[in-house]
Structures are given as C-alpha cells and as structure tokens.
C-alpha cells in the first residue's frame, strides 16, 4: 500500500480544533449551542478522549469535525484545521477525499450503522476502492484481510453475508474494519462500545486498541465511560453542557480530578474492591438541570461546592501546569484525593 501523503512535522498537531461552536435552531427561532467554543489539539499518534454525559455535545463535536452534521438548522463556527486545511470551509470534493482515507469514523450503534441491503463485503470494499484506487477484486481481498484482522472468523464467507446475519459485536468489528480500511491518520470513535454487552465491549475495545496501535493512527475517542478512557487514551477533555470544563492527561486526571463534575464521574464508577452493599455515588440531578454558560457555571445547579459566585458569572477556562480547568471552586488536595478512586 503506497500512497503519497504530505509529511507532518512531529511537533505540528494533526488536528487542531479552534473555538468550535455548533448551534441548533431554525431561522427566526432562538438557537441553542450544543457545542460552545471548544478547542483542542490532537498530535499524530495521540489518543485523546472527550468525556461527558449524554447531551454534553461530545458526539456533535465529532460529527462537526467530520462535516457530517445536517446543513439545515445548524450553524457551525470556529476552525477545524487538519494539517493546516480548515475542514469547515473546504469544498465538498476535498472533504470527501479526506473522509474515509485520512480521517475515518467508527459509529456508536452497530445495529443501524450498516446498510441492511448491501453485503458486508461491499460495504468494506467500497471505501478501499474509493480511496486506494484498486480493482474490485483487490478491494475484496483487502476486505477479507481486514475482517480477519478485526477477529471475524471465516471472513471470506462473512463478506458475502448481510448485516442482519451478524451479531452486534461482529457488526461493530465490521465498522472498525471500515474505519481503519485505508489506514487513516485520525480515527474518530463515537462511543463504539455503548450498544454492546459488557464482555463483548472488552473484546471490541481490545481489537480497536490493537489496530490503532498497528496503524499508528491518532484516536479521538468519544465516550461517557471512564473505564474505556483508562485503557485506551493518553489525554482527556471533560465536556459539560457544550463546553470543556477540565483538560488533563489521563494519569493526573484520574489521580487528582479538579473539577467537581470530573470528581463526580469518577465516584460513579462501580468498583470491585468497594465494600459489599455500598451504594454507588451518582452525580445528583440530571444534565437537563443547567443554566446557560452566559449566566454562570452550567454545572452549578448540581454541584456540592457551589458558591454565589458560580451563578453570577461564567468561570473562564484557566491553564496551569499543563492542564486546564473551568471552575471557581475546584477540588483541592485532600478533597480531590478523596474523590479519586
């Protein structure tokens, strides 16, 4: 597989998202910001996680990077620079050349993300055929090879089958095979294990991890599961209500969460070594109990550390010691240690 690719300097980020905002709302109606001035970088080969509850804007961020948001009723602003090219302004043709070859995506729901009336083989081979300019039979061969690599037994026969003949775990493996078919530089995985059984989740994650390592791809992992983050990612961005509230490398985030929301997420993970009968500590309330960022901290209504200041003005994202935090009253020292598992 030889393809001419522009070389990326190791110090230059592969993907640089600057002040990305996505607003939903039809013309004439008040719009709502699903993603609000989000910025982050991904370096070649880096594994970055965006963590948050449902509705925090993490999937919308991923779709905005891919340019897959619907055009009606959606306003996207900011910059998504892929090796210096702004994906938000580049034309359709250029975008479709990048999609699938340089930047690929693995979707959340394996039951609905494959076309029910097209064979697995064709769905895998079509992306190879499109970008690697190979013949139909070569693409098919490569498809068999890909399916074998994601751990699908008897791949030659599976290629001729339809999605409904495969289990959920197998279908998710097919989606991973499609995502990595052209050895992209960046793979975006949007909750790739959410729809699967726990045991299958572990297997699929293992496959994803191996293949991403094999191909040296950078990974943008969208998830609500900090267990997935622990096993797969180097860096974490925590999102709440459309904004990044905390940013740190994995080890420091797990050891010493600073934002009360991050602390809450960590405490709500079930643990094997906790005493029997001890209940989980969920974050009180739900993501719908929020206030607009313009008026204060969106997490304040659910926060145990809330002060008057939190509902008066919005906390800025402050950088220090290589991490960033959007909080007036962060967890400190002993409290933070206690929050950590």
């Amino acid at each position: 597989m030889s393809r001419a690719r522009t070389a990326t300097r190791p110090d230059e980020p592969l993907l640089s998202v600057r002040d990305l905002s996505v607003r939903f709302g039809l013309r004439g109606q008040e719009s709502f910001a699903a993603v609000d001035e989000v910025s982050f970088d991904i370096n070649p080969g880096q594994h970055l996680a965006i963590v948050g509850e449902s509705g925090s804007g993490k999937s919308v961020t991923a779709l905005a990077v891919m340019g897959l948001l619907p055009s009606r009723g959606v306003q996207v602003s900011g910059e998504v620079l892929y090796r210096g090219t702004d994906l938000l302004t580049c034309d359709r043709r250029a975008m479709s050349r990048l999609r699938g070859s340089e930047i690929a995506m693995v979707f959340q729901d394996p039951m609905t993300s494959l076309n029910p009336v097209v064979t697995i083989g064709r769905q895998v081979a079509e992306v190879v055929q499109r970008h690697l300019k190979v013949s139909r039979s070569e693409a098919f061969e490569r498809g068999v090879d890909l399916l074998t690599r994601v751990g699908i037994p008897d791949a030659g026969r599976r290629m001729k089958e339809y999605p409904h003949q495969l289990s959920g775990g197998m279908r998710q493996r097919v989606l991973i095979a499609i995502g990595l078919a052209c050895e992209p530089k960046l793979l975006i995985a949007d909750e790739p294990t959410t729809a699967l059984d726990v045991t299958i989740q572990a297997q699929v994650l293992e496959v994803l991890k191996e293949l991403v390592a094999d191909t040296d791809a950078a990974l943008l992992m969208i998830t609500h599961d900090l267990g997935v983050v622990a096993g797969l990612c180097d860096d974490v961005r925590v999102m709440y209500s459309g904004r990044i509230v905390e940013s740190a490398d994995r080890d420091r985030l797990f050891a010493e969460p600073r934002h009360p929301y991050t602390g809450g997420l960590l405490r709500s993970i079930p643990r094997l070594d906790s005493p029997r009968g001890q209940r989980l500590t969920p974050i009180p309330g739900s993501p719908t109990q929020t206030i607009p960022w313009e008026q204060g901290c969106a997490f304040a209504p659910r926060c145990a550390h809330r002060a008057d200041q939190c509902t008066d003005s919005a906390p800025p994202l402050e950088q220090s010691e290589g991490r960033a935090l959007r909080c007036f009253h962060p967890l400190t020292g002993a409290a933070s240690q206690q929050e950590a598992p």
Partner: protein
Amino acid sequence: MLRFALRRLALLVPVLLGLSVLLFVWVRALPGEPARSLLGQRATPEGIARVNEVYGFNDPLLQQYGSYVWALLRGDFGSSIKTGQPVLESFIEKFPGTVELGVAALLFAVVLGIPLGYYAARHQGRLLDTTIVSGSLIGVVTPVFFLAILLKLVFANWLDLLPTSQRQDPRIDATHITNFYVLDGLLTREWDAALDALTHLVLPAVALGTIPLAIIVRITRAAVADVLNEDYVRTAESKGLSRMLVSRRHILRNAMLPVMTTIGLQAGLLFSGAVLTESVFAWNGIGRFLFDSIGQRDYPVLQGYILLIAIIYALINLTVDMAYGVVDPRVRVS
C-alpha cells in the same frame, strides 16, 4: 421461493371462486337485460323470451352459476352475446393494446416519479420540494377521464401536435405479429408504423400515468426522507463515497422497497383507469371493450374479463412480492 409462489397461487383459488360468485350476482343485478339491448328498441316479448331461452337466462340462478363454473373449470369463458366471439379469444386479441398502454403509462410514472420524489426529499422544505409536492397533489386529485379529455382538447385539437384517437393511423399498412403495435413496428422494421404507434401512445399514457406518477412521487419522497435520517447513510458519507454512489447504493436501494409495493398496487389502478382512458381515446383494448359490454349487459364478457383481470392483477402482485426478496435480503425466503 418456488414453494412461496405455489402457496400464493393456491391461495388464489378461493379468492377467484368468491369473485366469480360476486361477479355473477353483480352483472345480473344491473338494471336491464342482455336480450333487450341485443334486440334494440323494437324488441318483441316473444323475441326476448327466445333469446333468454337460447342463453339459458330462464334457468334457476343456481343452475346457471353451476354450469358457468363447470365451463370455467374446463377453460371455457363463454362467448359474447353481442358478437358471438369467444370471450377468451377476444381478450387475448385486445389485451396487448391495454398492456402497451399500461406499460407506457407506468414507465412514464416511474421514470419521472422516482427522480422527482428523490429530489423533493433531498430539498425538503425548499421551493423545489413544495412545487413537486403540490404538483403531485393536483395529479392525485385530477380524475382520469377529465385529464384525458383535457389533454386531447389541448394537444390534439387545439395545438394539433398529437393524434386524437386510436392506436395507429388506419391508413398505415402495418404488419401485426404480436399486437403490441410499437413492438410490431420495431420487429418488422416498419419504422414509420412504430413511430406512428408511439405518437398515438403519448396522450393516453400521460392521462393514465398521471395518478400513478403523483403517488410514486409522494411515496418516493417519504421513503427517501426516512432513509436520509438513517445511520447507515451517515456511515456511507463518512467513507467519502461519491454523492452518486451514496444515493444509488445506500439511499435509493433502501427507499425502493415501499416504492416497489406501490408500483405493484398501481397495476390495479391502471386497469380501472384504462377503462376510462381507452374510452376517451377510442383505444382498442380490454378497457374500452369492457365499457361497451357494460352498456350491452354482455354477461359472459363482463364475467370473463373481470375474472381474467383479477388473475393478472394477482400475478403482478406475486411478482412484486418475489422481487422484494431480490432487493431486500431480510425477507428472502430460504
């Protein structure tokens, strides 16, 4: 697949039996009687009695039905009271005319309807969509006979662009092998005959195809709009495939399933529409003959033609159901 087809064909037997009872009762419930229309205004009571005697209309109804079914089972559909021609023979002679018209109408509806529905769905809420949708609404509500007369008036009488009636100019000396006039012209390389038959076909096909066109537009639009929201279309787009490939392989292939069913059901509508269209355009097919036969209370023709149409209609829908399995692997009968 074969077992499926055989089972469906077996189910057809009780349906046809039931239909034969309904038809038998219905034609006899029509006011007037065949003898009177056969003998005309100056019919004498004696003459009527004699005709009734000859055709067995004096026998008890049950006995009449019994002998009718008995004849049917032997493949005998009876003969026309008016012309004396066996019903099956005249049906076979006139059926190609109706098929030619029906196929042309359906082609018009499908070839225009699917792209229009697709573009409407892709531009939902915009001017193009609104125009197509309201246009299709007008298409649905316009009665066939009204549209037929209107088309004839404008394009044949006023603008004099197309012929007003019949399947072919009688002055053309055309050879007929299959009774599909356009096909005959092509087969015999009589190009002028084929072209003439084609120009005769335009107006009736448009008149007959407009309602199916409007329905296909609306069903396609709804089906495509549904499929556009599916996750697998997003997956296809995330692969960077060409727009053409995404719409053909991933959108239309899925959206075609409900459209196919609709096209099958339209076949029934075509037969009923053909009765009106053929009458307006003096088109020599089964529809016009059926219409004439109602006026003449030609019981054997009415019973035989409608029964034959029902069989053909059922076969068309069986074909559509089997084609479903070809397109959608999930319903493929193992």
